[in-house]
């Protein structure tokens, strides 16, 4: 009898909800019933409210069941694998949450075994690199420039321009072991510290070859032979997957001294961060990679001119680099045809926090916040009304209902002092205390400041104190004026985005939800919603 293929994700969200126990129960139950199965630990589709999502391959397609608990496994077998069951969601590919997305970067998410090179290639992997190997470096850079791809880490700087600068800058001798006399580097920023984001993690855990391919293409494009993935240490599962994938790529000749017989070289190494949010800032990250404290550097010189160990360095976010293979595979034009205005391509949006259907939604730019929150997100998990959403991580503004028709577009967001950032959307219901959230933004900035510049280092602590006095009603008018003045100083006077943007959530909370900062309405509000 032919064995039945069963998929249980190894993605850490699925594991955090019991996927390993489910996988073990499936193996045990199959053995008990004498049913031959092949168990594949795939990655997550990004439909997180259904995790652990078990899939069974059938002639009609892959049938999904979720969320599955280990105690449900016996009943799945009793019903028959692939047959109707209360937990069945039908054919997973036909699920409206997935079917209406435009998945370019996440095309393989949840479908493949993340560390199987065979699977990767069978699903379109390494076609971009194969094309790039036949191209001149300047043409690869031109393709990335023409695609309109902008940095997905948050700053949205055009990737092609960064690459062009590195291509045009001669390499330097870094004076470290194993480096060339004319060394350049590719550095991947996988220090995804923003709350409400997990797209980088999903790529690293769920499709690591995609990132490896993107970085290899970047190396060919600018003449860099060495790359580092700076991964946050809070992502232990991603570390395992990336290292497994790098080892496989080395074995099969997709990395190393002679990539696919082309004579081109590229070596890749994973380096772990150590719990400092500031290391997501590119120059602090480079300091950290050099073995130092993550202190922000002055710019210029740009990392593209003098980056890691003083050498020209491309430093890009995971999603930026992971968007490159599809551009080289299907062409710049194909990628550019998605999106609006100067925001081209797709953005993997992450629906997080108090949301009913949380997960990953990759859509072309232009989709409205309302569409994302209600059509995909289904409103709040608690069933209460949405009061505010924070877009773009802990440095992003809190956005009220009145702005939910905003289209996803870097420029449209910036016009309202909002930020697309890394595409994380954290949903809060009407029990949220916006003064508490504002205070937390300052507290977070104080905890994570590198300490190099005064507005950030001192301003954040003073910000907490002023908010405390404001909320206590201690000369409130004066305190509010002081808080706004302090925010202005931080916005204009900080060295990097941490101090320079921490005021955004504070000011947006203050502007859109002023009642939360007034003692009288606070006590009334507390009574209303039983906080």
């Amino acid at each position, binding site marked *: 009898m032919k064995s039945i293929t069963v998929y249980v994700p190894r993605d*850490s*969200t699925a*594991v*955090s*909800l019991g996927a390993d126990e489910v996988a073990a129960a499936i193996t045990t139950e199959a053995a008990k019933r004498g049913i031959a199965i092949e168990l594949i630990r795939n990655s997550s589709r990004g439909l*997180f*409210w259904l*995790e652990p999502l078990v899939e069974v391959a059938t002639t009609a397609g892959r049938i999904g069941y979720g969320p599955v608990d280990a105690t449900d496994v016996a009943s799945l077998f009793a019903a028959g694998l692939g047959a109707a069951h209360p937990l069945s969601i039908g054919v997973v590919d036909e699920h409206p949450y997935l079917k209406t997305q435009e998945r370019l970067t996440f095309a393989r998410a949840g479908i493949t075994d993340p560390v199987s090179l065979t699977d990767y290639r069978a699903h379109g992997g390494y076609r971009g690199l194969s094309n790039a190997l036949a191209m001149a470096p300047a043409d690869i850079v031109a393709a990335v420039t023409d695609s309109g791809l902008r940095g997905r880490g948050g700053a949205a700087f055009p990737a092609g321009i960064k690459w062009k600068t590195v291509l045009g800058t001669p390499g330097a001798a*870094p004076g*470290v*072991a*194993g480096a060339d006399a004319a060394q350049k580097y590719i550095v991947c920023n996988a220090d*995804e*510290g*923003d*709350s*409400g*984001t*997990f797209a*980088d*993690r999903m790529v690293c855990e769920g499709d690591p070859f995609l990132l490896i391919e993107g970085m290899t293409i970047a190396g060919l494009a600018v003449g860099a032979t060495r790359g580092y993935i700076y991964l946050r*240490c*809070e*992502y*232990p*599962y991603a570390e395992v997957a990336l290292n497994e994938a790098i080892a496989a790529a080395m074995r099969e000749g997709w990395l190393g001294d002679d990539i696919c017989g082309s004579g081109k070289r590229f070596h890749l190494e994973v*380096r*772990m*961060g*150590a*719990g*400092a*949010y500031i290391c997501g800032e590119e120059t602090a990250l480079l300091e*950290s*990679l*050099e*073995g*130092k*404290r993550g202190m922000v550097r002055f710019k210029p010189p740009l990392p593209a001119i003098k980056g890691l*160990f003083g050498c020209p360095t491309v430093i890009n976010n995971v999603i930026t680099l992971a968007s490159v293979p599809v551009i080289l595979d299907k062409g710049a034009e194909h990628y550019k045809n998605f999106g609006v205005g100067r925001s081209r391509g797709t953005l993997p949006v*992450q*629906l*997080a*926090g*108090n*949301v009913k259907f949380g*997960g990953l939604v990759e859509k072309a730019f232009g989709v409205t916040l309302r569409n994302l929150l209600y059509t995909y997100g289904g409103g709040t*998990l*608690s069933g209460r009304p949405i009061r505010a959403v*924070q877009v773009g991580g802990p440095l992003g503004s809190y956005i009220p209902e009145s702005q939910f028709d905003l289209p996803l577009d870097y420029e449209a967001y910036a016009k309202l002092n909002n930020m697309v950032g890394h595409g*994380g959307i*954290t*949903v*809060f*219901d009407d029990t*949220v205390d916006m003064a508490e*959230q504002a205070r*937390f933004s300052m507290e*977070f900035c104080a905890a*994570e400041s590198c300490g190099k510049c005064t507005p950030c280092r001192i301003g954040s602590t003073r910000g907490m104190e002023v908010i405390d006095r404001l909320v206590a009603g201690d000369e409130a008018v004066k305190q509010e004026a002081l808080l706004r003045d302090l925010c202005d100083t931080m916005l204009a006077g900080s060295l990097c985005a941490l101090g320079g943007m921490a005021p955004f959530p504070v000011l947006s909370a203050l502007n859109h939800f002023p009642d939360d900062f007034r003692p009288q309405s606070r006590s009334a509000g507390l009574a209303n919603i039983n906080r």
Partner: protein
Amino acid sequence: MSTSTFERKPPIKLAELSNLSAAQRAAIDDVLARLGQLPGALLPVLHGIQRALGHVPKDAVPIVAKALNLSRAEVHGVVSFYHWYRSEQPGEHVIHLCRAEACQAVGGRALEAHVKATLGIDFHETTADGRYTLEPAYCLGNCATGPSLLIDMQLKGRVTPERFDRLTGVVA
């Protein structure tokens, strides 16, 4: 002023200052032998030591500094800058509890209060019986299924106070 009353003391030897056990010292030497030659080796070396010993002992600092040709101040600066490294031996189990916004939106603050009350400790502290050390984390990337925590590097999602009690078996 005359300095003739000061006797010149012999230089301090590292070995005399060290409280490291022979096993700890061997583990540190092993990490340095494996990772010491990497470009920018300090973070990988400190991770290696913490993975082997559970913490980066204060007495490891001069050894690492010497091996990597850095000053002790530079090594201490790095150990103290990064939240992940700790200089004290942690409890049997280490819990990293997420404090960030996405977890706050689904009851993270209430969970934090429950965890602290149940364990009877604040962040960066270890229970008196040495069972648990509690550390804050600012996002574990599990933001659609929070509140989240890492316990001994195993990720747990949708952690209600009740689930926390089941996970730890601690009764308040």
